[in-house]
């Protein structure tokens, strides 16, 4: 198929983007490095979420569970059980994958609004656990003092942590990109389009839904790990349904039917939230209006919009099926 040569513009685009993000700390005042780190972590979470939402077509409102569990693994791993960095990351990923599998199995028989409400209930059940098991999680006060000594090849400063997060985010984005193109990834997209057709082709639909949740849970937990180390603090809010609603909206605004859309959604929403709250105390009203207007005028999200414009211009006069070489093909007329 197309050799790398044919995809030259894409490679340049990616390299330019990566270069820009790497050089970002030098371009902006140091405060915005912290903000950018949060954007990148949330962007990574949004991409992981999109494996279930955009690719799998499953409306999950309970993804904070993976994110928060990853965060708590770090919080407890550092302050209470003093695990090593590798153990913390492995446990977080295993936890994310395991809970992801549980979500997949429990949501086998549901779709649409019922799946949304089921994942909401699951997420809240896990939030309730963290909120209530006070002896372990210190409940509402959360866990602070989650120092970054354990994080390898990086000092504890905000700048070096930014680069660490960027590295991990790019690696995850790359692997999620390859995963989305892999047979399993395309099969997940297929189950979104038509589960009955995919089953008739020989795909075990339930399995692919589970894989989507496992992969999504795993990378969401990883994002949760980075989020806690970034803030050096974790509280039940990281598990609360409002975080699940936030990431859902980020993916929609960004454009869930594209690969990088949700990442852009994260940048747009967090920057907007930050910029608007500088200028008005009523930033919640502005955000609410943004969500309403997005749904009404930008249903496919910002990146999706590009797609729709492109499609509208590309002339869609489908040519009549040419006379086939052999005589064995139905001919359609216009």
């Amino acid at each position: 198929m197309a050799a790398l040569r044919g995809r030259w513009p894409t490679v340049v685009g990616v390299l330019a983007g990566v270069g820009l993000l790497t050089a970002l700390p030098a371009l902006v005042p140091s405060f915005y490095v912290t903000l950018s780190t949060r954007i990148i972590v949330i962007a990574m979470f949004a991409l992981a979420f999109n494996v279930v939402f955009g690719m799998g077509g499953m409306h999950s409102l309970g993804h904070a569970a993976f994110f928060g569990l990853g965060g708590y693994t770090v919080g407890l791993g550092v302050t209470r059980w003093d695990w090593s960095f590798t153990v913390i990351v492995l446990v977080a990923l295993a936890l994310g994958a395991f809970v992801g599998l549980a979500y997949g199995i429990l949501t086998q028989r549901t779709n649409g609004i019922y799946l949304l409400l089921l994942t909401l209930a699951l997420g809240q059940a896990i939030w309730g656990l963290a909120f209530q098991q006070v002896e372990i999680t210190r409940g509402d006060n959360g866990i602070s003092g989650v120092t970054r000594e354990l994080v390898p090849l990086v000092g504890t400063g905000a700048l070096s942590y930014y680069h660490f997060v960027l590295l991990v985010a790019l690696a995850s984005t790359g692997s999620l990109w390859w995963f989305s193109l892999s047979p399993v990834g395309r099969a997940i997209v297929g189950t979104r389009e038509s589960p009955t057709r995919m089953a008739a082709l020989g795909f075990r639909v339930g399995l692919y839904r589970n894989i989507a949740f496992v992969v999504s849970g795993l990378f969401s937990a990883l994002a949760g790990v980075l989020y806690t180390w970034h803030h050096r603090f974790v509280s039940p809010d990281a598990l609360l349904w409002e975080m699940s609603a936030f990431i859902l909206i980020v993916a929609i605004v960004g454009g869930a039917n594209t690969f990088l859309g949700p990442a852009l959604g994260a940048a747009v929403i967090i920057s907007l939230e930050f910029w608007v709250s500088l200028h008005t105390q009523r930033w919640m009203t502005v955000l609410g209006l943004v969500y309403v207007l997005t749904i009404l005028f930008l249903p496919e999200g910002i990146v999706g919009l590009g797609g729709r414009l492109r499609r509208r211009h590309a002339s869609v006069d489908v040519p009549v099926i040419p006379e086939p070489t052999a005589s064995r093909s139905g001919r359609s007329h216009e």
Partner: protein
Amino acid sequence: MTQTRRKLLAPLAGMALLLLTACDVDGEQDDDAVTIGLLNPLTGPFAALGEDVNDGFQLYLDEHDGRIAGRDIEVVVEDEANDASVAMEAAERMVEVEDVDAIVGFVNSGVAYGASTYIAEAGVPLIISVAGADDLTQRDAVGNIFRVSYTGSSDAMPGGTYACEELGYETASVVGLDYAFGWEGVGGFARAFEDAGCEVIQETYAPLDTADWAPFIQELDTDADLVWVLGAGPDAIRLVQAYRDFGVDVPLMTHGSAVDEEILEQQQADAEGIISTLHYSRELDTPENEAFVERFEGTYDRVVSRYAEAGWSSGLLLEEALDGLDAVDYDTLTAALADVAIDAPRGPISFDEYGQAVYNIYVREVQEVDGDYRNVVIDTIPEVSQFWTYDPDEYLDYPPYEELKDTWAGN
């Protein structure tokens, strides 16, 4: 696969562009002006508390037309939004972009804990306006973090001793909300009550935001001489209502936060007769308090609250600290704050070496005063430390209250 190129390029460029536009650098500085950051919640469940603190502080500035200790004061207000990640970024922005000289903030203890790591590192003096978690000014005390409000246990311990020694109650059933403030309040009361020779016979915790308090109220051991409650906000309203609804005729005593002025305004007759201990009451008849209450309620036409007093007092504290200070920087301001002594509406305030305010504790009783229900001051316990009558080092060796939860009754 031609679309992939455009799909990849657009988002990356878009993301970078957005980051650049987000940083409109402002915050021009003139040299002798002092910038104070107000980082309290303006949205979410604690929005009212945050606004009271900010209004109290602003009112104090307005009384001195924007200049205290001979310096122009610039105020930067940001929303803590009851969210640790937002609060941390706001604190960092205040320090690095707005170049604030001090911060007055934090209502939610979880958020205060979250942001304290950064603030300790940055060294900017912080006056905690409300957040009550004990360890912020005890085990995790940091030189540049002060607190003008109470710790979870500080205003409860005097109540324990007073109930046992002065009011003559021998047994008590204690009820608290199941989060840090609840364990610390209940623990403080129980420790003092039992050390004064009386006995806690029942200990109950109800989750934050309990919708229906009936089951807890009906489980109360009515043989107890006293029921002591640690509740706040809407929980306090619902709790006292259920207490009266189910006709529990055991005297009710609470931590002052359960009958805060703005809560009492909703409780009205339900709260009649409740005795409580707190470092402030609207009915204090000191000249400073009368002037403060009259100005606040005149300017904002809502009843004054201890949060507003905390904002006003922070202004007073900063004025005293800035007075006679030639170079204002983190260290000089922190050092100056450490040994201020002022007469605030609540009475005299100074800081102990952990940064916690030392102040009077008032025993109040809810009485009807010309048609309205007020916390009438019936006794004063002067100059109370956060460790009450215990030696600080000995007190800090006790296990933290979260580990003492469920251990007070029955031993």
